[in-house]
């Protein structure tokens, strides 16, 4: 963004830009209004087709892109006082990558959904919501100002709410949906206040204006910039499920599995990372905030990984692993490894979507069963699912040459430069990740089947509409890492080179922060070897426990050791929040209504009424009929009026 933003050079680009979000929106409208009339085949065609078309157009924009960002102005949205908010889209390196990710992975998951949801009565509604989600997410990444980003930001929250509670007959699912929306809203309010502060400080909410002005600042840690970045980060904590606002994400697994893959793994939850990278100038100017982000990210990564160690629900394990991996990405942001964080966003989108869809395939085959204690030996029945799931597991564990290895290795190397203690904790997380992911794999696909006979007879490989997306994502998880080869292998880091212009203003503001302090090759090799070794040890450990010794996690009823119990119950965080926030709030509101509204305000009001009646009843006795008394009262009144007249003057 060194060059000034140009308007779109030709009208094709403007039209394309408009079409990208418009197509999914149309898909939403058609499927939403016709969800009970249209046949399923047409619904899935519209649903998938609109996203595919958006993906193809994004590809065209990507290949036409000449390195100069541009904006597409659609109309003046809000124009009040000094506030000018245009409704316009911005195309630059970052939004292009996000476009490809959202529409690409989105399309694959749409195709998968057509198979996964084929027996569901709410098929049309489901595709309508998915398209609405894609639309909102595209708005989020395309918006050229913070308010438009916020529209998308809350819009994806709405879709997340609707899709988590998709099966709305089940009360816990509805609770999960409500919780997701409300916890996200806490974050959103922080984001909103951040936008207000931006407007007051820079007099604009448009990226171009703000970043250009911020590029002129050189003093780091100005209080107002720190406040802005902190407030915006509160929004990211909600949306990207960081401590202490992460609790909604594991519950969000109540939604259908494609939703977990699309919204709660690949795209929406990375919006917080997108936002920080988009605002990199501001964050670079606020190292204090960056330190805070690094600590939160690392704490989240470690914390969620420990919970993941003992979960027995296939989707819950993946959910905690998502929280943990998001923590990694924030850790990277915190040490200013913006590109590495984006790299991990991409590879994580591939392998985590793959793992979720694989889990969906397993759940589909198991007739809805999600407890890994009832699974086992599934690799014989679900060969494609097994192979692809294995690839995903290897990728997340950081085994070369799968995608996760490159991004995680690069990320950890940057953390190592920043702080060796943080790196050690990162490595610990990496160890736990490899362990619980292989625990999940072994318990699900190895050993003997532990479910009921009925489930055993039902076991089958999923249809092609589900396995083909798995294969595509498996390929991406295998080769996706090559867009960012480490420096020891290649001087040409494709992703980093591509993204580098978006850090122009940050580089201009704080040049020192971008001075490359490259690790020497020996250290780099050493770090790589250590992280691979750690993963391999974890895998072997998991193999020994769950394959050789054939141990299966204990039944719900068995007595656990206190520590184990604490972790198994997710540190009782939900219970603590309930006791500290939810219940007091309910008490307060009922208390206010009972004691203030009905006990204080209303009695005073009614008291006036009663007072008047009582007064009238008693004043009646003044009407005595005695002229002398009337004259006396008159004189008194006149005196009073004169007196009042005197005061007012």
């Amino acid at each position: 963004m060194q060059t000034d933003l140009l308007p779109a050079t030709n009208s094709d680009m403007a039209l394309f830009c408009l079409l990208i979000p418009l197509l999914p929106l149309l898909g939403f409208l058609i499927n939403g209004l016709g969800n009970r009339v249209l046949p399923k085949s047409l619904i899935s065609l519209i649903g998938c087709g609109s996203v595919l078309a958006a993906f193809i157009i994004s590809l065209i924009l990507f290949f036409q892109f000449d390195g100069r960002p541009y904006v597409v102005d659609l109309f003046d949205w809000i124009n009040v006082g000094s506030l000018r908010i245009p409704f316009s889209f911005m195309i630059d390196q970052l939004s292009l990558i996000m476009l490809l990710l959202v529409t690409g992975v989105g399309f694959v998951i749409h195709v998968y959904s057509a198979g996964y949801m084929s027996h569901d009565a709410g098929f049309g509604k489901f595709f309508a919501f998915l398209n609405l989600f894609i639309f909102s997410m595209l708005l989020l990444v395309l918006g050229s100002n913070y308010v438009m980003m916020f529209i998308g930001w809350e819009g994806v929250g709405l879709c997340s709410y609707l899709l988590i509670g998709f099966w709305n007959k089940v009360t816990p699912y509805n609770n999960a949906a409500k919780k997701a929306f409300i916890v996200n809203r806490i974050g959103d309010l922080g984001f909103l206040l951040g936008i207000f502060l931006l407007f007051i400080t820079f007099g604009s909410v448009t990226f171009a204006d703000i970043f250009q002005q911020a590029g002129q600042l050189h003093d780091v840690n100005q209080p107002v910039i720190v406040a802005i970045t902190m407030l915006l980060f509160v929004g990211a904590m909600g949306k990207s499920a960081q401590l202490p606002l992460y609790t909604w994400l594991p519950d969000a697994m109540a939604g259908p599995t494609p939703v977990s893959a699309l919204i709660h793994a690949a795209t929406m939850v990375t919006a917080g990372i997108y936002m920080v990278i988009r605002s990199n100038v501001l964050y670079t100017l606020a190292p204090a905030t960056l330190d805070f982000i690094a600590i939160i990210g690392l704490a989240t990564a470690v914390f969620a990984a420990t919970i993941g160690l003992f979960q027995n629900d296939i989707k819950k394990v993946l959910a905690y692993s998502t929280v943990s991996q998001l923590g990694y990405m924030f850790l990277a942001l915190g040490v200013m490894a913006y590109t590495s964080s984006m790299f991990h966003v991409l590879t994580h989108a591939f392998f985590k979507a793959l793992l979720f869809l694989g889990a969906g395939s397993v759940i589909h085959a198991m007739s809805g069963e999600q407890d890994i204690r009832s699974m086992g030996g599934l690799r014989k029945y679900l060969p494609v699912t097994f192979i692809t799931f294995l690839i995903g597991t290897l990728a997340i564990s950081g085994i070369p040459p799968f995608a996760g290895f490159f991004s995680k290795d690069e990320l950890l190397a940057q953390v190592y430069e920043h702080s060796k203690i943080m790196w050690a904790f990162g490595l610990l997380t990496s160890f736990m990740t490899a362990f619980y992911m292989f625990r999940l794999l072994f318990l699900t696909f190895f050993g003997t089947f532990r479910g009921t006979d009925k489930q055993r007879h039902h076991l089958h490989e999923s249809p092609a509409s589900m396995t083909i997306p798995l294969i595509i994502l498996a390929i991406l998880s295998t080769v996706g890492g090559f867009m960012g080869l480490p420096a020891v292998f290649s001087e040409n880091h494709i992703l980093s080179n591509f993204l580098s212009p978006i850090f122009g203003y940050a580089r201009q503001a704080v040049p020192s922060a971008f001075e490359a302090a490259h690790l020497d090759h020996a250290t780099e090799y050493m770090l790589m070897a250590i992280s691979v070794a750690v993963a391999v040890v974890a895998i072997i450990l998991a193999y020994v426990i769950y394959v050789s010794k054939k141990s299966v996690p204990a039944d719900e009823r068995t007595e656990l050791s206190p520590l184990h119990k604490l972790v198994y119950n997710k540190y009782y965080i939900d219970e603590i929040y309930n006791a500290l926030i939810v219940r007091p709030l309910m008490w307060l509101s009922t208390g206010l209504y009972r004691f203030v509204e009905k006990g204080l305000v209303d009695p005073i009001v009614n008291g006036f009424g009663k007072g008047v009646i009582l007064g009238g009843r008693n004043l009646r006795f003044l009407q005595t009929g005695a002229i002398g008394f009337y004259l006396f009262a008159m004189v008194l009144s006149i005196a009073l009026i004169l007196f009042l007249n005197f005061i007012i003057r």
Partner: protein
Amino acid sequence: MDYILSSLIFIPLLAVLIILCLPKHFTQGIKLVALLATSLQLILSVWLYSAFDASATVQGYQFVQQLNWISLNLQSLGLLQIQYFVGVDGISLSMVLLTGLISVIGIISSWTISKNIKGYFALYLLLVGSVMGCFLALDFFLFYLFFEFMLLPMYFLIGIWGGPRREYAAIKFFIYTLIGSLLILIVMIGLYTSAFDPAATAVRANLAPAGQVVSAEVVAEVQRQVAAGTLTGASIVHTFSIPDMQQAANFIPGSILNILSEKQLWDIPVRYLAFLLLFIGFAIKLPVVPVHTWLPDAHVEAPTPISVLLASLLLKVGGYGLFRIVYPVFPEAAAYYAYFVGLVGVLSIIYGAMCALAMADLKKLIAYSSVSHMGFVLLGLASLTSEGTNGAMYQMFSHGLISAMLFIITGVIYDRSGSRMIDNFRGLAFSMPAFTALVVVAFFASLGLPGFSGFIAELLVLLGAFSSSAVSGMLPRWLAIVATGGLLLGAAYYLWALQRMFFGKHWVHPELKGEPVMTDLTKREYLMLVPLAILVLIFGLFPSLLLNKISPDINYFLQSVLQNR
């Protein structure tokens, strides 16, 4: 179309006369007359909206009609002059449009009324005409007349067609608003004795020929002479004209509300007291915590269409009064009490939302959410920033649409089951899917989701309140920060209600009378909810449709308040 504003006011009143002449049993005819009258009103208000010229600057009252109505020569006290003076500017425009829209929706909603149809529709139209009159009057006396006139039909509409505790609710509503009106009346008289009409005075003092427009120089000359004391007594023409009252130069020297006379009562400047009286008068109508308790009772007892009118239009008269009269006439007091006004605004936002969270009755929940949302109007106004005041006005319009939807929604449930208790229903989404979709739209619109009109309003208000300390120096930042809590609580009570009533396994309390069948929406109900939903979306996606029309005048309003503080 010189008489368009008068037509807007008198079409419904004319329809009242027609209805009174119709035989009692000719119910279809009565309903059709009412529908026709309100539809005509809607068409005229849409035409007015499109014909309104937003580029016109400087206190641009348009479509003005000004006639002498009552003239009384009080000899040495001057001339008493009450005018039939109507006009429209950016501040009233959106309210007129809203009145046109909601009146028709209310008639459609009234279609199922079965008790004393003739009386009902006559009172309904009387109410609509009075509300329209309130929004168009530029003479304080005329405004007050319409303001009082709303009270009477409302009292009977709640007291006769209401629920079981209708008499308590009606009398509570009546007394509350009557107290408000009394406070307004006191200040109105004070203003009348203090303000004069420079143009009419010029004519009376033979400084200008009668029957022609009096030039600005002559007006200034008259103002100068009155200020100097050379024009006094009998030659001064007192006025109720609101535009005249908005200029400090139009106050007689030494009069009680002249800003220079600095009169005090109990050590408080009289003008500040007058501001407070007027403010409380309109705040009761808005309503503002702690003078809000008539609202939940009135809503719970009122029949659905009357609740719709109450929430969508009558509350707005309170906010409109602040915009039209209180702030421009007492700008220095408005600035002085900005903190206080902002504080009660935030109090209303949070307190209303907290009470809504505790409600077991859906209609009461929505009533308290109205209290909460009207708090944003106060907060925006108190900020005295362009964003805040435009947002406050936008909130009035947007809340008018959204609350109409919400009350129709409770009506839909009540019509089928005779109950509105949240706990009596579960899983309504199963039997009423289309209805549920519209409920989701209304709830999310009300909790301020981007894309709906409520978001624009609340965004602008909060931004205005947040930037106020830097721009106009009125409100501290923490007020805006606390107010955002209202958005969070809004999400909580709406989503909780949504979940309890519409999600889960389908179940309706078996003891509800007649074992209600919860069927999906009828055509008539679609006809009310769908247009409202579309409007809420349109004004959420394209706010400039409204903002471009209203903001020049609101900015002018703001400037004049800030200059004269």
